[in-house]
């Protein structure tokens, strides 16, 4: 019998409004078990609203947000037993030391791994006896990550966790994340502006623009179907005609020729282009390029 797996994260028609402003509109999304889903978007795109709905902090105006098949708003307290959260702004009470914060959390989770938390804090170099209010921004985030991983969660929700971290701290953060979760199969839902940081980490990419999910695709597929094609020694008119079979979504004229971005790269069509323009080159786009492209022009609107 074919059994549908319970999705760690799912949204259906999720709409969030603040007065007359619509932050999220009809968002539908599903994250499979073990997936690392990176949600990208400009400031104000609705990422935090989505995270707030997923964590059950906010009741959606319409639609639903669910974790492990249960409504996040209704069953928040129960669901949080399986979820680790690293917030955008570290929220450990400033008077608590790392040890005290861990002691508080330890009593709340039956699966708490104190040894793991202690080891992680040592690796991060977070002092155990210093109140959280006196820690650096990076240390606070690392403390939050250590506390989030403490109960060995099935789902980790990270809301722009590397915001304000220096490159070293950012790298350490992702290394810890990767190293710790490599064999565990934990699902990760991540919002970030740190596109370079998640390159190679995220399995699936979602891009929000003005409250709508305009991209929701496996990172590999997304990258594979997008190409930057450079055609030197062609005039704009020639390039437009030659590139037409590849249906470019963006064409820019440069001093050296023309460059175009195609959203559905077709190797055969490209080879035919090369017959006409032998110097044409196709290269993969970085996540940052894809993001810039998405927020500038809609690549593809999700159904």
């Amino acid at each position, binding site marked *: 019998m074919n059994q549908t797996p319970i999705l760690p994260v799912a949204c259906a028609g999720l709409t969030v409004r603040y007065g007359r402003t619509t932050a999220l509109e009809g968002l539908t999304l599903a994250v499979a078990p073990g997936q690392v889903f990176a949600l990208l978007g400009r400031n104000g795109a609705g990422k935090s609203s989505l995270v*707030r709905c997923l*964590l*059950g*902090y*906010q009741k959606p105006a319409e639609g639903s947000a669910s974790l492990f098949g249960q409504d996040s708003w209704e069953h*928040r*307290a*129960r669901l*949080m*037993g399986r*979820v680790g*959260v690293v*917030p955008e*702004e570290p*929220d*450990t*009470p400033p*008077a*608590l030391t790392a040890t*005290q914060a861990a002691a*508080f*959390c330890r*009593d*709340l*989770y039956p699966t708490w791994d104190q040894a793991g938390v202690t080891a992680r804090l040592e690796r991060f170099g977070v002092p155990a006896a210093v109140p959280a209010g006196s820690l650096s921004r990076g240390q606070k985030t690392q403390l939050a990550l250590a506390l*989030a991983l403490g109960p060995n969660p099935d789902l980790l929700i990270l809301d722009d966790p590397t915001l304000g971290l220096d490159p070293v701290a950012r790298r350490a953060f992702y290394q810890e994340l990767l190293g710790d979760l490599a064999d565990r199969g934990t699902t990760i839902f991540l919002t970030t502006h740190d596109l370079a940081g998640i390159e190679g980490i995220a399995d699936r990419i979602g891009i929000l623009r003005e409250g709508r999910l305009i991209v929701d695709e496996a990172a590999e597929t997304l990258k594979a179907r997008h190409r930057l094609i450079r055609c030197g020694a062609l005039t704009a008119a020639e390039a437009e005609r030659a590139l037409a079979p590849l249906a470019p979504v963006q064409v820019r004229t440069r001093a050296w020729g023309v460059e175009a971005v195609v959203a559905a790269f077709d190797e055969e069509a490209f080879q035919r282009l090369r017959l006409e323009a032998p110097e044409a080159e196709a290269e993969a786009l970085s996540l940052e390029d894809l993001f810039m492209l998405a927020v500038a022009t809609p690549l593809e609107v999700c159904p």
Partner: protein
Amino acid sequence: MNALTVAAHELNGKRNLVLGTLALGVVLLAAPWLPWLADMAAPDRRLLLALTPSLGVALALALLTGITMTGSDLQERRAGFYFARPLSGAAIFGGKLLGGMAMALAAAFLVLLPTLLMHWRPTWAQVPAALTLLPITALLVLATMALGNAASISLRCRSPWLLLELAALTLAGLLVWGALRRMLAMGSFLTIKWLVAGILLGVPAVYLAAGFWQVSRGRTDLRANHRALATATATLLLTLGLLAQAGSLWAVRVRPSDLRKPGLAGAQGAWALITGTPRWRGDFPTSLLWNPGKGTSLNLGCLPDPLEALFAANGQRLVYWTPNLGKDNAMVLQSVDLGRGAPTIRDTGIRLRPGFHPTALSQDGRRLAVLELQGPEAGLRVYDVDAGLALVSVPMAPCTTARLVFLDPGRVRIYSKATTLLADEGDIQEVALATRRLTTTGRLPAGTGLYHMERHAGLDRLLARLATGNGGHRLILADAATGAERATLATVAPGHTAKAAFLPDGGVALVTVQQMRAQLHLLDGQGRQEWAMALDTPPSRIMVLEASGPDRLLLGFRHLAGDAPHALEVDRTTRTAKFLGVFGFFPRLPSLEGPFQGTLFTRLTRTQSGPMLSRDMPGFYRLPMDF
């Protein structure tokens, strides 16, 4: 369990603050050495000295915790630390509340501890009293925390929901004030205590419940918290206000069947004035106008003295005085027209300064005579009850006590005594209202007690009791206008008892108890004996002796002090007596008209024929007079 984790976390975070209060307790030991506190050295005074700052510290910490328990986390966007854990909103708020309360109580105890250790040597009797301080302080702390939390959220957010809170608070206040006024008007002071206690407990409970709702629904967003808090507070406060209104309506809407141990203050026409304490309403005394024929009633509230209420002889009106509480404390005359339609209470506008004023109501109920006994305004004043105006004012010499009676709507008779001495004679005067002329018509015999007199209106005769000076007394029949003695009915030696009452035709019933022999005498209008009968057992006290019909009289008495009263009805024509039963309280016979005429309403505990429970009056027994 999770709430306890949060509570322990809260307490642990502020343990240094709590321990710091111990230092204050130690400092207090030295307080009596301060010059202005030198008289506080006695152990009991030291305790008092320590209790005040102890309570102060508890409340200050409660306020501090209340203000910060959710507000600061929300404002600094740190509430997610708790909400990202497997903690329900109730566990978060409850835990913080519990932790804050434990902290405040622990701090209060630590402030008190040094003084307790050094100076308190409690007796066993003191321990329960001391322990009652704990729940009282805990309640105060909880209330302070809940109110502090609500104020903190409202002031930090300052969203338009604050207007809803303020509007609800105002409306609820008005509802409660209305309820209090209604109960004050009815004089149900004990119920007011309940209401005030309910409000004192209810308001903090509202804010506590609203706090739980706020955290459960608002979660990590300050504005959403304020919205949830404001809607819950408004809903609950209005509910509390409506409950107060409903409670006060219930408390003052008393029916005769609600009265415990009802008594009869008077009856005329179709209406009886009954008094008693309604069940489950704080035992406040109330008076009801009751029409047994129709089963309707009107609550007059708590009258200062229901026996001073006056029925018009034609049964068309009742007037009574109520205090104008909180204003000039004057006595205000209320009038209830009983003639037609549903009776309603009307403020006549007639006011008197507080104090004792003999009064009389004319037979038609339209005029009220009031005597001012002393002072520059001493004299008789007659009012038009319908218009609320003084009609006539006749100055008189001051007197100490008096009784008034309308002879007809234009004449008032005054029986008065200038001194308080019982042995002195009194005056009998009449005022003709048309001419405002005061005429002395006679003298009351020396020894006459004004409140031991009974007048027969038809014959204008008096039954009076005259003290003989040696502890005994005489019962006489006298002319009501002149006071001239017509006959001596009985001479009663000290320690013996006698009671006389007019019968409708002017005859007199007389009971004498002397030398353990009790006799009932029936006399004619001249005081001549018609017949007499011996009573089986001599009563120790005669409580009621009055006509229960043209040829019947009711005798209520106790055999022994402390006994339940017995009732006996005597048929004058057959010269037989019938034992009615043993009563739970003093029976009085209403001179009612209509289907219940001749019916004795009382709570019988035992009768010969067995009591009959009236259907429309649960709790009352109706004893039919079958002759």
